[in-house]
Every structure is written in C-alpha cells, then in structure tokens.
C-alpha cells in the first residue's frame, strides 16, 4: 500500500517511461545528422526510415519490434556496409556508418532503462566521431549542444518524468559547465598524442592544396575551393598585396604537358636581403605535402625542427605536414637570389624544353629575342604581348592540344595563371634565358578584427622566375598584366575583395553581416591557434614553464593524485554510509535479507520484536529460526535502543545461527 500517493516519482526498477522517447529520438538525431554529408545516401535513407518508424510506433503505443524484423534488417545493413566500404578499406567510415545504424535500430528494441544507457553511451561516442570531419569552432559549439541533449536524456531517465524539458536542459547545462574545469585540466596536462588521432588523418586526406605539379586546369580547379590553406599573423605591418607571394614548389621540368619538380638537392640559396624585413608566423593547415609556403623570400625560420631549403629556394619539412603546424619566419619581400653564377645543373634544368613541340612558339621567341636581346627586355616584351594581344584570364579555358603553348598563344588565348606562367617560361627558355615556374599563393584576406591574414585555396597561383647575372632570379607574374576588362568576373570579384593595400579595411565602414563574418573568422582563428594547435611541443613548453620537465613523471604524478583522490572519495562515501547505518542495525538488515531469501517478508516498518512475534504465530514449527531470531532481535534492541555495550561480534554470531534457506524442515 502506497500511503504517499504521488509524492515520489517511480525511479527504481527497470521501468522505462514513454516520456523518455522524445529525448532518445533527439539523441539519435544530434548524433547522426552531422555525419550525413559523409555517408552514402542509402544509409541515410535507412536510418531516417528507422527513426520515422520509431516515431510512428511510439505514437501508437510502443512495443519492441520483433526479432524477425530486426535481425534480417541488421544483417542486410551489415552486408551492405561491408560491400560498400570494402573496396578501399575505409574502416573508419564503415564503423561510423555501422554505429549510425546501430543507434537507430536500438530504438526499436527498448525494453527498459538498460537500453537507454546503451543509446546514451552510443550517442556520446558518435559525438566524438564528429571530430573526424572537422575540428573547427562551430563543430565545438555543435558538440556542446549535442552533449547537452545526450546528458539531458540521461538525466531525464533518472528524474521525475513530469519535469519540464527546459529544467532538465538547465540542469544538464550546469553539469556540463561544472565539467569544464576538469576538461581544461585534462586538456592542458594529459599527455598529447604526436600526430592525428586514428581516423582523422584519413578522413581529412582529401584536403586540397598545391600538388607539386602543374598542368592546365589543375590550379583553376583548386581555386574553386574555399578551404583555408594557412593563416598568417604579421608582427608589425602587413606588406602590400603585390608583394604577398607565398612560395610553394618550384617547377623546372616540362614534358610538354605538365610541369614537375626535379630538384631534390638541399642547398641554401644565397639571398641578398634588401628593404625592411617582415616578421610573421604561419599556421599551416595540414596538406600532406612537405612544403611550408613562406613569404618570398625567407631568411630565417623556426618552429619546424628539420626544415630545409632545396636548391631552387623551396622551404620544405622532412615529413609531410599532417598536423596543423605553426612556424615563425622572417622574410624580405625585396631580395636578390643566386646572383652572379648559376650551376651547370640549374642552367641546364631551367633551359630544358620538350623535343619537337611548340615549334611555332619557339620560332616566335627567337624572333622576339632578336628584337629584345636582353633577358629584361625579353620579359618586358612578353608581358606587353600578353597585355596588348586579346588574352583572357578565365577559370574555364578551352582544352589545349599536344602543342599546348602554341595552342594557347596563337589560338585560344584564354587561360588561367598556369597557362600564362607555362607560356612565359617556354618562350623565355626558347630565347635562352634560364626560367622556371613557381607555384604558391598570392595575397590573402586580412581580418580587420585581429589583423590575421587568411590565405585560402582560392588564392592558389602560379608565376615565373627568370635568371640574370646581375639580379639573380627575378619574379615575373604574367597574369598581373591582363587588364581588368579581360578578366573573368568571378576572378575579378575575388580580387576586388582585397584592395591593393590589404590593411586599410575599416571595420566601421562594413555592414553588420560583414562585420559579424570577420568577428567569426577571428574567433575561429583563435580556436585553431589556441585549442587545436596545442601540440606536444607546446605542452612541453607550458609544463617546463610550470617547472615540470619530464612528461612521463608528471603523468604518473597525476595518475597517482587521481587514484588517491578517488580512494578518498570512496572512503568518504563509505564512512558516510557506515555512519548512517550503525553496525548493529546493519546486522539486523542483513538478517532480514537472509529471511527474505527464504520467502519471509520483513517490511521496514515492522519492529524486530513484532517480526519475531509474527513468525512465532505463522511458523510455530520452525523453532530453531524463531529462537535464533528472537535472540538476535533482543541483542539488536539492547545495542540500538537500550544503549548496552554488546560487542558486534556477538550480534554477528547470533545472525549466523539463523538457519539458512536450505533448512526449511
């Protein structure tokens, strides 16, 4: 008989209130929806159908779905996942697909609280896997909100079902906030893993970036991507846009179709700095290639232990960049490189042309060289040629034939930067001037909020360098001479975003949307700089600043502290429990349990003596039990109510004398 009607919610047992269902649905949705862009269509369809089916089932009074439906569906989906993902061993993607399916099908077999715990645990785990796709600030916020939903679902399970959802959310929010200090401590002090977490690298290996070769159409494809290539923070002023050439791979080898690099020699180029230096740091997004993309031309750098220059002045690291990497540079936008003398290898390499191709261009170059017999004049003449003739700068140029440069110069006259750089280098080489193509990035966008320069893939560019005895390698950007009316509007728009002086965007002059965009970018930038870029090196640096040099020792120390803390908490809880149940009463309660096992009820409101009397009347034949229980009850009374010093040992002995379940005679 429940004499407190409605005063206590039912929170015990395995009973699962239907009020929990909307929460479970929400958990499934927040856990799987962000995966949809990365999952095949069929699995999205399957999961959404299951969710819809669950919703309908729940509206009509829920019953767990029959095994005869669940098992075949599960087997089919497992087989489909195995087939769909097996061709290139995408184990990580396959497991995410499988988990997405699991959390949905679990909704069809809810029988009790246990099943809810499974869904909540799966939900938390799936949240973690969102980081495989993206780690930016927005994902962080989304995960916080998702964790809020999953935690609320868990809270709601143990709460009064009638409690409003908003209150549950509020409690969960407070709990998550309370967890933040611990998360911070773990984040700062837990040993960092060198390299990406399993899965993340492969999931993100589709990153775009300079490929190290140059073919018609390759860079223009890259330009369509809005992904961030790297961010730059200048220490003082930002150089003007016309100087912001970020140097990537230098390509000297031409086979008539694509440009490749054949320069593997480590050799520091001789750089003669002129003008003021620019000091800056670059946070490079992982691109799976070794080059580091500094501003032309770097004279010193730090942050990458094993970086080196190739002989053509490309700064590379020994391993491909697979993590977000931060480096410090000092560059001189005005410089002279490799003055005076060029090695035989370099000369031959930078005059090489494929045999028997582009004959018309070669003849044309010889003709121009006759009129302009110095390299500078020749370069000047070529630029004038591109400017004056109807050359167009466009993102989708027509396809070119076997004699690509001939086709471009005399027929199509439409191209992207790689066409111009390629044509320029071929013509210069035909005239006998050592010339090479350089790929990299041009410009960038400055955020007026934090003055961080963001360079996106859309800023990918190609230009050329020719060599003279007096000046060394001189940069020439043939696309820069195309007048605006012959530039495709989409390219022009992109460039218009950046006025020639990059720094003069006044925040006040922008509308609120643009301003908000800049603030958001600044926030995202801080996120990647301070949260994502917390590498093992930075951790070591922080720890050494705290006076801790050995990470292994500190790990052990923290493990010890944590274990000690947990033991203390456990002891505290145990002691509290012991205080609340005094030993004599604990003996009595355990004796009651012993009786319960024999089918004798011991209601908590019944006094021990009343119980003894009741048993004596209901089981008059069980003399042994009655005698032992009566003795124990008297002892318990003596200790608990009469303040008599009876040793607990005697009580325990009396309890032992209670006949067990076996002796029902």
């Amino acid at each position, binding site marked *: 008989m429940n*004499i407190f*009607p409605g005063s206590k919610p039912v929170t015990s047992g395995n009973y699962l209130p239907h009020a929990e269902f909307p929460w479970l649905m929400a958990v499934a949705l927040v856990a799987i929806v962000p995966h949809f862009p990365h999952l095949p269509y069929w699995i999205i369809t399957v999961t959404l159908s299951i969710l819809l089916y669950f919703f309908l089932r729940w509206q009509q009074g829920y019953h767990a779905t029959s095994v005869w439906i669940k098992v075949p569906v599960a087997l089919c989906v497992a087989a489909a996942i195995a087939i769909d993902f097996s061709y290139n061993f995408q184990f990580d993607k396959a497991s995410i697909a499988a988990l997405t399916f699991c959390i949905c099908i679990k909704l069809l077999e809810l029988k009790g609280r246990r099943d809810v715990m499974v869904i909540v645990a799966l939900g938390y785990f799936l949240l973690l896997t969102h980081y495989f796709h993206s780690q930016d600030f927005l994902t962080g916020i989304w995960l916080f909100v998702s964790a809020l939903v999953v935690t609320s679902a868990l809270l709601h399970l143990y709460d009064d079902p009638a409690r409003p959802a908003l209150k549950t959310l509020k409690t969960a929010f407070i709990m998550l906030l309370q967890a933040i200090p611990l998360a911070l401590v773990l984040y700062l002090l837990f040993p960092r893993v060198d390299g990406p977490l399993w899965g993340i690298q492969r999931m993100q290996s589709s990153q775009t970036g300079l490929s190290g070769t140059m073919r018609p159409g390759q860079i223009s494809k890259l330009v369509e991507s809005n992904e961030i290539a790297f961010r730059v923070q200048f220490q003082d002023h930002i150089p003007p846009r016309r100087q912001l050439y970020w140097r990537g791979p230098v390509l000297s080898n031409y086979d008539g179709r694509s440009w490749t690099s054949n320069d593997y020699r480590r050799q520091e180029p001789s750089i003669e700095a002129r003008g003021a230096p620019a000091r800056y740091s670059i946070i490079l997004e992982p691109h799976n290639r070794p080059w580091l993309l500094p501003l032309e031309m770097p004279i010193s750098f730090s942050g990458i232990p094993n970086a080196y220059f190739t002989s053509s002045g490309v700064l590379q690291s020994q391993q491909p960049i697979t993590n977000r990497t931060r480096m410090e540079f000092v560059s001189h936008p005005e410089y002279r490189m490799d003055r005076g003398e060029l090695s035989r290898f370099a000369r031959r390499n930078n005059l090489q042309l494929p045999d028997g191709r582009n004959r018309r261009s070669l003849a044309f170059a010889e003709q121009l060289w006759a009129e302009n017999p110095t390299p500078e004049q020749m370069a000047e003449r070529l630029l004038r040629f591109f400017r004056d003739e109807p050359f167009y700068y466009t993102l989708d140029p027509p396809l070119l034939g076997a004699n690509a440069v001939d086709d471009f110069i005399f027929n199509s006259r439409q191209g992207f930067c790689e066409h111009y750089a390629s044509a320029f280098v071929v013509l210069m080489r035909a005239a006998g001037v050592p010339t090479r193509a350089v790929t990299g990035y041009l410009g960038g966008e400055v955020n007026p909020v934090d003055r961080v320069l963001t360079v996106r893939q859309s800023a990918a560019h190609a230009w050329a360098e020719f060599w003279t005895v007096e000046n060394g390698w001189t940069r020439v950007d043939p696309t820069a001479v195309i007048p605006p009316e012959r530039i495709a509007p989409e390219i022009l728009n992109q460039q218009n975003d950046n006025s020639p002086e990059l720094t003069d965007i006044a925040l006040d002059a922008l509308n609120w949307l643009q301003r908000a965009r800049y603030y958001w970018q600044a926030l995202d930038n801080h996120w990647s700089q301070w949260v994502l870029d917390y590498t093992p090196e930075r951790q070591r640096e922080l720890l050494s600043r705290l006076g801790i040099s050995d990470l292994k020792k500190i790990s052990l120390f923290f493990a010890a502290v944590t274990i000690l803390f947990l033991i203390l908490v456990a002891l505290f809880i145990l002691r509290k429990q012991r205080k609340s149940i005094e030993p004599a009463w604990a003996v009595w309660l355990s004796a009651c349990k012993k009786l319960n096992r024999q089918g004798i009820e011991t*209601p*908590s*409101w019944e*006094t021990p*003596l*009343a119980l003894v009397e009741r048993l004596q009347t209901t089981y008059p034949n069980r003399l042994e039990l009655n005698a032992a229980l009566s003795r124990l009850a008297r002892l318990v009374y003596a200790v608990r109510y*009469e*303040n008599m010093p009876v040793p607990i040992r005697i009580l325990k002995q009396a309890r032992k004398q209670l006949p067990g379940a076996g002796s029902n005679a």
Partner: protein
Amino acid sequence: MASPLKNLIDQAETVIFGKRLEITLALACFLAKGHLLIEDLPGLGKTTLARALARLSGLSFSRVQCTSDLLPADVLGISVYERERGEFRFLPGPIFSQVLLADEINRATPKTQSALLEAMEELQVTSDGETRALPQPFFVIATQNPAHQIGVFPLPESQLDRFSLRLTLGYPNAGAERALLTADSSQARLDHLEAMLSTEEIIRHQEASQTVFVAPALLDYIQAVLTASRQNALFKHGLSPRAGLSMLAIARAIAYLDGRKAVLPDDIQAIMPSVACHRLRLRQNDEPARPEDIEAMLRGVPIP
C-alpha cells in the same frame, strides 16, 4: 520501583475487568503529566476507571457532571461575601482536587469547556484577580460521548490537542462481562480499594518515568512519524509538536511501567493510535482518524 505501579494496575483490574491495556495507558498518561480523554458510550466504566485510579494512588478526587447549564464558576470556584468577617471568601470548585473527572465534557458549553481546559493546561486558576495554584499532581480525566448524539458541543481540535491520550474502553469481552454480572457492585468494589501510594511517591514516579532512555534512533523515528502524518494525504492536518512531546513522554512512561530503562520502537507503535486518533481528522470525510488509519500511516515509516 515499578512494582508498586504494577500492583496498582493489578488492583485496578479487580474493579474494571479485562481492560489492563487501557488501565496501563491511563496510568502512563498520569505519569507523563498528561490528561486523559475517554470516549465511549455511557455505562462502559469510564467513571469507575477514574475513581479507581484516584483511590489507588491516594489522591483527592472530585467529579463534575457537565451539562449545558454548567458555568465556569461551577468548576473553578466562586468568591462569596462573608458578612461576619466583612470580606470575600473563595469557595474552591471541584477543579481543586488532584484527580478531576469531567464527565461528558462535550455536553458543557464552549465557555465552560475552555475555562476548564485552560486551568488544566496552566495548572492554576485565576479568579477575582487572584491566582491560585492547583494541587499537585493534577490529572484530568474527561469523558466524552461520541459526537453524533444530540445536544453536544464537540471539542474543537485545539482543545483536543491538550489531551495527551484518548482511550475507548469499549464493550467488555464475554468473560469480563460475566465477571461484572456476578461480582459486587462497582461501588462496593471501589470501596475495597486502598491507597497504595502517597502523593510524594506519585511525584517521584512521575519524575523517574521521564528519565527513561530514548535512543537517538527513536527520536528520529518520532520525527519521521510526525513528518509522515503531515505529508500523508489521508489527513487534513498533521500532528502538532505538542503531540510529539506527548508521544515521547507517554512512551517513556509505558516503558517505565513495564520496568524497562529504555523506550523501544514497539512502545511508540503501541501508543500511536491513542496519541494520534483524536488529533487527526480524515481529509476524506472530516471524521476523526481511526486506529487503522494510524496503522496505515505507520506502515510508511521504516523503523530506524
């Protein structure tokens, strides 16, 4: 120590047959310095019980038969002018005795009822600006007919709370009934009784009974029972703190009468119907709570 009290109960049982538990409770109420309300139909031995207790404990006894024309002065006393001496003289009313039987208290008017109950609570009477202490010990036994008879003024809850204990004697069982029929008249039996205690001894027992040990766990239990009575949807109101004090005092007295030095949870459960029934009213029909309601409430409170 307790054995003279046991003898006293034995003796009382020779007058009121088969009501040992009620006699014990009544005596416990006396030891706990409480007052007793007996609710019953007429002729079930309420008066006999009161007289027996008074006689056996050697205390002065008086009786007031309450009627609707009974005035406060009839109970408390009155000042009369004595011409010979030229001054007022206070003639104490029946309340100036150690055991007062207020028969059928619900037939008195509320004015008289409250005068009586105030005196009972404060152990003094104020009349004509003069305060007179009542004799010690002072024990009121009020009897009441069940309220649904005509021409009664049922005691309000605030007054009921002043009675520590309420008893119903009920009909005697067959054996007791037979004994009643064959024995001498009750008056004759009362005359046989002799005082077994002096006033000093009574006061000593009263004090000694209240030193009985109560384990902290049982104080918790009393508190839990009080809380349960307040939270239980069965009842209109919960038990008052005064009810808790009565519970404690009477449980001690019961243990003392049983010759024990400590209160047991069984004591508290045993006295609960007598302590709580008259103080609680059912939400359902506004009737006084029945012993089974109290038992239902106790089933929600685990023994600590």
